[in-house]
């Protein structure tokens, strides 16, 4: 393989090649191929158990991969995590944890700090700006438990902003938030996109998916379709994604789990 100087700006922000992921030996994603262009807002859509969150986690190296590879900005993902922002599902953390909103947002800066360095004034400034953007600055010193679901989601978003990444993975940022927050989040996503960021957003709600995203990734254990929303959002493709026509795929996955 030829070695060349890779510049983030001209290699695709996210490139996934033949990615297969298995949980407890049971495959949940088969042979995923993706090349995501820069500056797009991509919705990841599919039924429950389609592997949407798994795709994100695999890209971030949070789950072991059976085969294939993921490149971020032309570099193996594990080596380029500083350029990636991550918004996990809201339920994945303990909201009773004794930290303030500000502390959580500052965590977004940790990737940029070394082992020893403490968040400096500049990091705090960035965190404040990010909170301002999600209209949560007045809550900066609140303990995170004292927030509504929508506010918690905004805090997570602010944290991702503070990561100052070029590529964002968001796992169901709209789950369980009020309409105002949903509108605010989508405005923010568009703003990020306009600044040349790439966003991969797991989304549950099909009707709104059409309006929110530039591109859609229809996922059901494999890539059913990936392309501009207007091309992909068709009855046939959605039928194929949600219709469960590929029961054999999950049957075989089960067989692999039992025998593998």
């Amino acid at each position, binding site marked *: 393989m030829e070695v060349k100087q890779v510049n983030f700006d001209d290699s695709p922000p996210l490139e996934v090649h*033949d990615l297969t992921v298995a949980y407890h030996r049971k495959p949940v994603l*088969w042979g995923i*191929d993706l090349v995501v262009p820069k500056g797009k807002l991509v919705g990841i859509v599919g039924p429950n158990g389609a592997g949407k969150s798994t795709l994100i986690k695999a890209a971030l190296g949070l789950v072991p991969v059976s085969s294939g590879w993921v490149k971020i900005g032309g570099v193996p993902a594990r080596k380029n995590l500083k350029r990636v922002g991550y918004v996990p599902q809201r339920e994945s953390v303990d909201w009773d944890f004794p930290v303030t909103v500000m502390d959580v947002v500052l965590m977004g800066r940790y990737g940029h700090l070394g082992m020893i360095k403490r968040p400096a004034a500049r990091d705090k400034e960035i965190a404040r700006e990010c909170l301002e953007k999600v209209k949560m600055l007045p809550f900066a010193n609140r303990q995170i*438990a004292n927030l509504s679901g929508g506010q918690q989601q905004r805090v997570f978003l602010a944290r991702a902003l503070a990561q100052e990444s070029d590529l964002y993975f968001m796992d169901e940022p709209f789950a369980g938030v009020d309409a105002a927050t949903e509108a605010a989040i989508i405005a923010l996503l568009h703003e990020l996109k306009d600044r040349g960021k790439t966003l991969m957003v797991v989304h549950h709600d099909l009707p709104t998916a059409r309006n929110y995203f530039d591109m859609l990734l229809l996922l059901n254990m494999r*890539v059913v379709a990936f392309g501009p929303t207007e091309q992909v959002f068709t009855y046939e493709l959605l039928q194929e994604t949600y219709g469960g026509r590929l029961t054999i795929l999950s049957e075989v996955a089960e067989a692999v789990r039992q025998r593998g």
Partner: protein
Amino acid sequence: MGVYHRGTESTERGGGRAFSFFSVSSVPLWLILLCFATQNVWAVRIGEISETTFGEQVVRFFTFRDPALRYALVGSILLGINCGLLGGFLVVRKMALVGDSLSHAVLPGVALGFMWNMTKDPVAIFIGATIAGLLGAVVVNLIKETTLLKEDTALGLVLAAFFAAGMVLITIIQRLETANKSGVDKYLFGQAAAISLEDVKLMSAVTALSVAAITIFYKGFLVTSFDAGFARATGFPVRVFHYALMLLLAFSVVISLQAVGVVLVSAMLITPAAAAYMLTDRMHRLLVLASVFGIFAGACGAFFSFLRPNLPTGPFMVLGASAVFVGAFLFGPKHGVVVRWWMHRSRAHRTKRENTLKSIFHVLEARNFHGEGVTLAELAERRRETIEEARQQAANLRAHGQATLNEDTMYLTPDGMQRAMAIVRNHRLWELYLTNAAQIAVDHVHEDAEKIEHVLGEDVVRELERRLDFAQKDPHGRVIPSVADIRKAAAAPERVGATGYGN
């Protein structure tokens, strides 16, 4: 194991509960009889035996002539039954450490019971300890309900706080001269020799109660353990069952204290039940097995601590239980690590053989099936291996009756040919399926099919074939062997080389 099997049969007939009640509850009965059996009395406390040899002690143990020994043994067995039964519920309810907490929490109760009239009065201690244990359980729940502290913190907190209070009381008691020989410190690590006839009576009563309660209300305990929400919706008093379980748990902890000690009671609750959990998937069998393991562990402790003076009983019981667990963990027929490793290994071997068969098939296919023999050189070239490796694989196939070897030429037996075709068929059908139905790029499907071909079952393959409209060719344009082809191969006469198959 006999118990285990009979349990299975009667359940299938629908009467499993009645059965386990009689078999388990009869154990304490005959144990009590054993206690009262008139024998020559060697009235020596076990802990004080000093100038006997190892062999003599073993003989003494198995002749059961010593009443103190009989009490110790019977007591250990009873506590084994109790702890196994209750522990079964703890382990499946993911409450294992509740047992740990509760067993430490009884200590202040033990001390207070002792202070009642400054003797080791089993009843006073029993009552005090039970109250302390239940109080501990209530405090854990209260902390969980009223504060932000999580369950593990609440458990650890109660454990430490109650235990420290108990230690304060015990050190105060020990300061008093009258109590110096009381043996209250034996409650920390356990000494089965300290079990008296009164203790045995109490233990039998508690065991009978636990066994009866669990047998009669088995359904309630089961459903509230498995799915509290559903149980509440169905009208089961979940809270009552929870506290009933806690009460029985406190009972079994308290009766175990003398022999096992506060610190290690939790092991008797957790380990036998965990071992049983490795071996069975049914709750009632789990409970019976856990009790059996508990009995074994209890007897182990009584035996080993008898061998030499001043050996504590509890740690030996725990090691007995741990040994059972390690056995179950490694050699359990279904979930055991060794069994799983062995199956994995034999599958890996089979996969290797199947890959060789496939390569042979490919060689034959490449020359349109002209001539039946495939030389080792051809195979090695196909698999990009050395001749030696190819020879080894050929020998392996021969050992499994899938090929014969004449000089350096291999011939597939009908069985081998059939298997080779089936694998190739699986591979190609799966590739076709991934490309056509799942629309995965053609250059990706091969690697996946390499793995999947070995695990596809016959029914899945037929289903695949049907969905692909009985396609004849794979995405790369090669013929997919059909069922008819495979049958034909099976029916072919066996080709026996000069020094061939069976040699």
